[in-house]
């Protein structure tokens, strides 16, 4: 194992894999910022059971979701709270989940019941299943009932079918550039929404393209290195499993622009399961779908919808809550299952 390999910690946040997690934990304090990374990683492991972690003053505090009723709100409050949902696939109706409307509604209910109300939602794509207007309409309607004031989107490959993303842009990308990329700031945290599902080439992976990369470089230039940055895009910006298209051809270039920042969080979807990797100051995280699960890399013939017993379905779907407390700390990311 090389030093750079050792610096990357891979672990699953699914409950079944929690036992394997410990051997993948790598403990470095190479930021010398006093962050208790052992505690951070341990807390991430509890995420599968529905734990809620908040970083305050470099100390990680964790609470199980069941105890949250007893919690003093000021203890749980970070400076910025938002939630990530992904892959709602409105319009999907096959065996893996005949009722994606019900499971998206359950996800919103879960979000609305979080102890710290998220200020906004990030939807990391595949809002619809077939880019049909009624599918987008239904998703929008359900999202309206969330307690969060705003929803920020990036498209998945299912959202740009048949019209090269024209409808997606009209609905969700009015202030965006190109195929729908944009950035915004919330309480000193910089967010960049990227599009990596356009102009895909035969045999290829996700693609950002030169125009977007140039925009990103320019967009990040003016920020100080201490600004926490969150980048969100549909297809993972790291190489999860290229054989199944789970990666982005030119993400290395994007990541090179992020290298100088002290805290970078990359939030993706597409693979319909939670996965996390930490490399230096960058935390990569993929969210579960609110519609249907997909198999773990290489565990099936293809990355199609994975059928599970009906009563177990909600255990494979989920939402993600992200909390940021000002300081040099990484953002606390917690995945919660729907059932």
């Amino acid at each position, binding site marked *: 194992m090389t030093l750079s390999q050792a610096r990357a910690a891979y672990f699953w946040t699914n409950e079944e894999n929690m036992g394997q997690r410990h051997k993948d934990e790598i403990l470095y304090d190479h930021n010398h910022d006093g962050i208790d990374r052992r505690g951070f990683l341990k807390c991430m492991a509890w995420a599968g059971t529905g734990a809620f972690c908040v970083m305050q003053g470099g100390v990680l505090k964790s609470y199980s979701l069941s105890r949250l009723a007893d919690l003093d709100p000021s203890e749980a409050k970070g400076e910025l709270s938002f939630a990530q949902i992904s892959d709602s696939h409105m319009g999907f109706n096959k065996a893996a989940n005949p009722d994606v409307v019900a499971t998206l509604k359950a996800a919103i209910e879960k979000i609305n019941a979080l102890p710290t109300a998220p200020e906004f939602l990030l939807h990391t794509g595949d809002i619809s299943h*077939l880019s049909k207007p009624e599918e987008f309409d239904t998703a929008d309607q359900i999202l309206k009932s969330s307690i969060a004031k705003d929803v920020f989107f990036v498209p998945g*490959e*299912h959202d740009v*079918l048949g019209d090269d993303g024209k409808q997606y842009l009209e609905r969700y990308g009015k202030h965006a550039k190109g195929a729908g990329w944009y950035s915004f700031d919330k309480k000193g945290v910089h967010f960049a929404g990227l599009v990596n599902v356009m102009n895909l080439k*035969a045999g290829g992976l996700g693609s950002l393209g030169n125009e977007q990369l140039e925009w990103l470089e320019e967009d990040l230039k003016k920020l100080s290195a201490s600004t926490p940055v969150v980048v969100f895009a549909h297809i993972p910006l790291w190489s999860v499993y290229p054989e*199944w*298209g789970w990666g982005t051809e030119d993400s290395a270039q994007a990541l090179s622009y992020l290298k100088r920042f002290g805290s970078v969080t990359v939030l993706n979807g597409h693979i319909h399961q939670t996965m996390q990797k930490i490399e230096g100051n960058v935390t990569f995280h993929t969210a579960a779908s609110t519609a249907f699960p997909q198999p773990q890399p290489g565990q099936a013939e293809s990355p199609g*919808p994975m059928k599970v017993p009906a009563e177990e379905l909600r255990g494979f779907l989920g939402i993600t809550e992200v909390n940021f407390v000002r300081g040099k700390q990484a953002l606390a990311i917690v995945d919660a299952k729907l059932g």
Partner: protein
Amino acid sequence: MKGKKKVIVWIAPILAFSGLYAQAGKSANAGRKESGSGSEVKIDNFTFAPGTVTVSAGTTVHWVNRDDIPHTVVSDDKTTFKSKPLDTDQEFSYTFSKPGTYSYFCSIHPKMTAKVVVQ
């Protein structure tokens, strides 16, 4: 003895026929990247089967999506042929008038690739 022989003689061709029928009708199984000279391509399990189809100029090739996820049929150059998104059981056809090798892929899941060889 005579009776027995007769039975054996009849059974053999029946078995041969049913074997042939089974192969002809069901050969386009998911996941098997074979060559074919028929003009039908089945899409299932994120695979075009057969992966290579060889036809004569003027043949119409039919694709049918049997997967539980939508796919498209798009030539590598993205202009020669381009289906709309095909949901489960939807079909697409294209008539290949000029000889050549036409590589294509699914534009939604670009790792899915295949080709049509037109002679």
